[in-house]
């Protein structure tokens, strides 16, 4: 067992523990933290196979950007599964999902184990020159891909802004009010969009319960209260 193997097993173990923590943690912020550990472990694996640039990108994108985005979203949408026990169907769904996941995992693992891999004579080890990545990305073929991925990101950007932006016009039917309450008068115009406001106690009265709950969850998650 050489050093590489030791590193592999260590990273794999961390990754697995992270994923299991993500799936099992009752509090969603704990889950996200566990996931960060898993992402970092995968980044370590990337280093191990000589993909250093990729490792850096993974840390930046996954452990950084995506996780932060997720935390933002979690803060804006409190009231998760902790509030009440899972309904009957969800327990059933877990059974099905477990069956599917186990089946897929077993099928892939069986196939991998039964495949006689053969190392090609061309194969190289050691870290890849990042300049080669750059050349490839701007080559004739992948230059096109590079342009298309910008369009994908553009679509995501525009779509996310349209969806997440709170309209200046009052939302009909009482956006925040529960279904049964009579229509409330439109809230007074606000300078900052509500979506970006910090959860503070001096918000308008009708919105307080939801945000208090967010607060409570944050406290419970041990991330401090932000004040």
């Amino acid at each position, binding site marked *: 067992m050489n050093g590489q193997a030791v590193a592999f097993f260590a990273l794999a173990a961390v990754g697995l523990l992270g994923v299991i923590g993500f799936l099992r943690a009752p509090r969603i912020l704990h889950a996200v933290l566990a996931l960060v550990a898993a992402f970092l472990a995968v980044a370590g694996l990337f280093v191990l196979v000589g993909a250093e640039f990729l490792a850096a990108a993974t840390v930046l994108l996954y452990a950084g950007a995506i996780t932060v985005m997720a935390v933002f979203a979690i803060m804006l949408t409190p009231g998760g599964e902790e509030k009440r026990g899972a309904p009957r*169907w969800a327990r059933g*769904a877990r059974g*099905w*999902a477990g*069956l599917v996941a186990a*089946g*897929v995992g077993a*099928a*892939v693992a*069986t196939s991998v184990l039964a495949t006689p891999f053969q190392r090609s004579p061309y194969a190289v080890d050691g870290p890849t020159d990042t300049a080669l990545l750059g050349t490839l990305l701007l080559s004739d073929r992948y230059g096109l891909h590079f342009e298309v991925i910008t369009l994908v990101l553009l679509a995501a950007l525009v779509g996310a802004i349209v969806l997440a932006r709170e309209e200046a016009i009052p939302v009909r039917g009482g956006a925040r009010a529960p279904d049964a309450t009579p229509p409330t008068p439109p809230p007074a115009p606000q300078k900052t969009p509500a979506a970006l406001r910090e959860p503070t106690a001096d918000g308008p009265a009708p919105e307080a319960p939801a945000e208090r709950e967010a607060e409570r969850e944050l406290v419970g998650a041990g991330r401090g209260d932000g004040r």
Partner: protein
Amino acid sequence: MQESWLPWAVLAPPFGAFVLLAAFRRPLGRLAGWIGAAGATLALVFALQAAWTASGGVTLSAPSVALLSAGDVRIELGAAIGPLQAVMLVVVAAVSAFVHLYSIDYMAGHRRYGTYFQHLSLFTLAMLGLVVATNWVVFYLFWELVGAASYLLIGFDVEREAARRAAVKAFVVTRIGDLGLLAAIWGMAQGAGSFDIAETLAWASSGAAPAGTVTALGLLMLLGAAGKSGQFPLHVWLPDAMEGPTPVSALLHAATMVAAGAYLLALAFPIVQASPEVARTTAVLGAFTALFAATLALGEEDLKRVLAYSTVSQLGYMFLAVGAGSRFAAMFHLTTHAFFKALLFLAAGAIYHAVGTNDLAAMGGLARRMPKTAGLFALGALALVGFPPLAGFFSKEAVLAAAQEAGGVPLGLGVGTVFLTAVYMGRLYVLAFFGEPRTEAAREAREPGGLILGPMAGLGVLVLVAGAATAPVAGPSARLLAALGPAPEAGAGLGAATVLLGIAGLLAGRRLAIGARCPMTAAVRKAEQALQAGFYVDACYRRTVVAASVFVGRIVVAVDALVDGLFTGTAAAVAGAGRRLREAEAGQVQRYNAVALLVLVIIALVAAIRGR
């Protein structure tokens, strides 16, 4: 084989009429009827010309257009007229022309006068197209179009719930048969590698096709024919179809469309003949239906429904003839039946106009008020029962003579039907035309106008002379029918027996009619109730076909509930089955994704373990 535009020319006038009516039916007003009639009459002229040519033993073949081609398989929009097609064309065009003329007065003042003739022209076009088609796909196309026109015409009085329901019923029941036809077409194309009618028939009868396949194809085709022709057990739609206007009943549901099933079997005659099982099944089915429907007709209190059951019964004769191996007898009977049954329906329409109902209980004594109608009705009825020298006698004799080939049981059923036919017609006639008028309307009944009587008289003439169509003196018509196959030899006794049976039946019918107003024993009443319920076949449908779909749905729910119960251990899931199906439509996308993915997981596992 002879190149000719005539097959297309036959289709052109009804098509033109349809287009004209579809575009301008409102501004045309009363003229709409005349345009429709002109279209049908012109088609008749072309059909007669085609028949004249075809009687010389040639097949008129029109230039064709390729509709679709998929590799070697080509679907051609072609048209051809051989002797068989010529007979059918003349019958369709002739009855259609008379019905169009009749309808001009009959439908006068109706809110959707123009639409009616538009539908009628569409039907005529579709029916003629069906006859001249040279390709199974095109045939099926027109077959469906005929069904669609029937749907529209049965439900023509959209305001009435009964009419709407009858239209839907007809559509659904005949569709069961259509499935059979579709499967048969598909199977033939599979085997013969072609959709061409002539090629597939040649393939089926050549012996190249496996015997089992031919039998299966024949039975499927029989299913298709039975659906269209209202043969047992698919007969349930035809009596209800009487909700349509009476001229429609005369044209579609007595003379032409329902005969399309018999025509299909005559067309696919080589297949029927190639398999003894199919021939036997066809003969027995036909004979049984003939007797069965005649029995049902005995208990009916509605004039049109009696005639409808009678149609089912007579169509059974045609099936019997085809099954017994005589295409000649089948087509001959088809022709004469078209004439006399159309006549009977048109007369029934005249009565409806005069009395305002089809209920026999509301008639009586009409012979005095409407002597001409009564006379023409009698002519049709006697032809139906089979008295010489009327058309029905000769054709029925031909059918029974052919049935001798099919064995004792079909022959017995066929002869028995002669008696029953006479009974229900006798009863009907006495109830409607003799005795005292039973309602005010019947007392005030009046003879219809010339435009209604005229077409009836025309058909009456045909009923008188059509019997001679096979006699050598008739020239072309005899040659035409003879081209369909040899005329079966009838013993002298058969004709005499049918006449005697007919007379006995009429007398029995008269007794039944008079006795109907006498107090009856409970047993007879009960039997009659059973008959009126259509031998419970209708209820049977409600319980099977309709219930089956509900049942399948329930099974799906039950399985779902069961699986779910296994996982969650709640027996309550079984109780809430109805609610659960609603849930299946609701938003729990994740779980359904998981369940659905499971199938593919199994494939993956199998592939992984088996090694590719």
